[in-house]
């Protein structure tokens, strides 16, 4: 079930009515677990078994880690990590591994090919696996007591708003909230619904509209010129931001209406002046996950400068691989790692002008998006080559409608984010103290969605991860 569907809207309305109708905490938890199972099973039903498998392993691992001392703690943590990473490895990386082995065999003239697994990647696997791992690691680090209630732990992993594309929550934030009976609060409902509405606007009006243009260019790289690639890459940068941040906002909003607070996942990243600032504002839950559980585990900043930089690079390579089993994602991650290393040296020596900072950040990030979006490494190479031989030519415009509608959405997005970034003292339409102005804001957004939103659009980009 995807958020941008009537199916989800009906599901959400039923769940929220039942949720507030139930007056006992355990019944509500049951409701959310069942609803989350239904939500997940709308994709590939049988894959719920994978989730139950990891839930059981991590639940017991958590309890045993909590109970045990010294070495045994590590043992149970390793079991939990192996189970989670093992599933990730089989379902997500096995075919990538086979592909590379076969390629090497071919190069060496060895007439032996490993067989591919014909399986579909379980939706959102990387997200819920990372969330499950954060639980056992936090219990191991004694930052979190093991959850004794299996049902609540199950909900921690399965909680439908953030099950398939995050935000990747930490147990310290989410688990305690499930132990509290959430009363119906007007602020929670309205703030949550506003986020959901804004998320739908970003997804349906901007992301899915831009996708029409971006897909037509990136899916036919042989037929386009450098100006078109430049335009398509810029538009993809906006598309992926709107797509993913929309998902996060709908997830946060959905949880909020039930009284649960999820972590912020995006903070207007394209207003960043440096690459490091960009990564503090983009997919915050994943960036902090890698920082807390990988970068710090590798030694963090407490090692030599060169080792710290190497750690940073490794983290970004793995972050790239987390996104997808393809060399394109590894290159994308690696590029961002290199950017951060270079930037740290440059910023030590020079003071960068604000405008130059914004510009270089956007150019560098957009360049890396080419590898993220291109269908293959060969396609990415063609686009990069074309951009390095840039010529101003007439860009491909399949339908001016696409760009006109996108522009309307982008203009609204830009005004809203500009206000949030620089003019926070002025209240926006949706947060105005006058009900009439808020009402006008809601009505305008709904009308724009109905008029120019893309209703036949596809899934969220991050579902594939």
């Amino acid at each position, binding site marked *: 079930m995807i958020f941008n*569907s*009537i*199916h989800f809207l*009906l599901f959400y309305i039923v769940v929220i009515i039942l949720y507030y109708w139930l007056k006992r905490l355990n019944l509500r938890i049951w409701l959310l677990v069942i609803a989350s199972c239904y939500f997940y099973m709308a994709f590939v039903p049988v894959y719920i078994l994978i989730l139950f498998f990891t839930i059981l392993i991590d639940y017991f691992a958590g309890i045993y880690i909590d109970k045990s001392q010294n070495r045994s703690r590590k043992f149970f943590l390793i079991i939990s990590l192996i189970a989670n990473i093992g599933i990730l490895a089989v379902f997500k990386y096995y075919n990538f591994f086979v592909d590379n082995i076969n390629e090497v065999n071919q190069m060496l003239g060895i007439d032996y090919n490993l067989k591919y697994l014909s399986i579909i990647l379980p939706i959102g696997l990387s997200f819920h696996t990372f969330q499950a791992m954060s639980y056992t690691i936090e219990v191991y680090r004694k930052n979190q007591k093991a959850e004794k209630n299996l049902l609540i732990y199950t909900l921690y992993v399965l909680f439908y708003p953030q099950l398939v594309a995050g935000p990747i929550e930490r147990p310290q934030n989410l688990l305690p909230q499930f132990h509290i009976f959430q009363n*119906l609060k*007007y602020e929670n*409902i*309205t703030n949550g619904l506003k986020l959901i509405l804004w998320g739908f606007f970003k997804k349906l009006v901007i992301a899915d509209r831009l996708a029409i243009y971006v897909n037509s260019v990136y899916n036919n790289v042989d037929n386009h010129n450098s100006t078109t690639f430049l335009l398509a890459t810029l538009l993809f940068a906006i598309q992926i931001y709107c797509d993913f941040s929309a998902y996060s906002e709908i997830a946060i909003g959905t949880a909020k209406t039930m009284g649960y607070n999820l972590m912020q996942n995006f903070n207007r990243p394209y207003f960043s002046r440096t690459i490091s600032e960009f990564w503090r504002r983009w997919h915050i839950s994943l960036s902090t996950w890698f920082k807390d559980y990988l970068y710090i585990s590798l030694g963090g900043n407490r090692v030599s400068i060169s080792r710290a930089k190497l750690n940073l690079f490794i983290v970004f390579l793995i972050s790239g691989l987390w996104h997808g089993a393809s060399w394109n994602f590894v290159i994308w991650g690696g590029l961002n790692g290199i950017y951060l290393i270079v930037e740290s040296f440059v910023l030590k020596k020079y003071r960068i002008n604000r405008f130059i900072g914004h510009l270089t950040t956007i150019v560098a990030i957009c360049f890396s998006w080419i590898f993220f979006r291109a269908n293959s490494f060969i396609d990415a190479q063609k686009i990069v080559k074309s951009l390095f031989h840039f010529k101003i030519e007439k860009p491909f415009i399949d339908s*001016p*409608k696409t760009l*006109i*509608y996108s522009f309307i959405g982008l203009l609204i997005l830009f005004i809203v984010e500009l206000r949030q970034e620089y003019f926070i003292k002025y209240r926006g339409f949706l947060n105005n103290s006058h*009900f009439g102005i808020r*009402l006008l804001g*809601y*009505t305008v957004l*709904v*009308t724009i969605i*109905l*008029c*120019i*939103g*893309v*209703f*036949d659009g596809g899934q969220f980009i991050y579902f594939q991860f």
Partner: protein
Amino acid sequence: MSYKVFFKKLLIFSIIVLSVDFLIGKCLRLLYFNETNGLHARTTYNLEKSREDVIILGSSRANHHYDSRILEEKFHLSSYNGGRDGNFLLFNIAQAKIILSRYTPKIIIIDLKIDDLFWNSQELDRLSSLLPYYRKNLIIKDIIFMRGWTERIKLLSNIYPFNSEIVTIAAGNFEFNRKRNNNNDIRGFVPLNSVINDTLSIYNYELKDLDFVKIKLLQTLLKECKQKKVKVCLVTSPYFLKIGNSTLFENTIHNYFGNVKYISFLNDARFNDRKLFADKFHLNNRGSSLFTNILVDSLRNLMINKK
């Protein structure tokens, strides 16, 4: 804040949204059906006003290939080209159902692309072109609802049938656009003037997932035409492609629609000249003229043989 205040505000919001949806939807409907030229206007004419003897249905290939003037001159029958860019067989079947519910043309020509019988999810998306006509023509609801059960809910909105059409509707109501379009549209037929700069390439036809729902719908339509004594001809107009395994496609047509006249121009040597094509899939003005003239002769036989 109390529940009462919350639900009161929610009610006010719902009423306003419903009113805005109603008003904007009505305006868009008015403007949509007020268009006199262009894509929307041609479809509206074909579905709601046409009374012609010969109706041509199909995609952009039909729209650019069948010269209504030649059909009229040679047949002495009025004709209208109802082909529409980016719309395929399901759309054509729905069109035919609406037309047949209104009057009985003498001949219906359906242009079939070589991939028309395959399952194609895009085809369902493109059925959105029919949404403005849904309320007046419930006869096509089965085809519309193939887009999914949620379509029933979406269609409660008055704006939704015109989703993403605002720019086209606005342009269709501007005078300059009317003048511009006047030159292009010849009883639905829109000729192309460019010439392809390419050589004949090979396309190997492969039998993919046949869409049996679509096949069944077409069979039902053909049966209805037979009952109403409407002559139907299925045609595959020329491509600037050498189609490998073309007989596989032609045999599939004969297998499922054997009782209907089918004319194939696949690999027809008369259309190997690039000067007849605007691109690999579309004949230009010159090509459409040649094609329609040849087709008329074949259709004459149809009328004589199957009278």
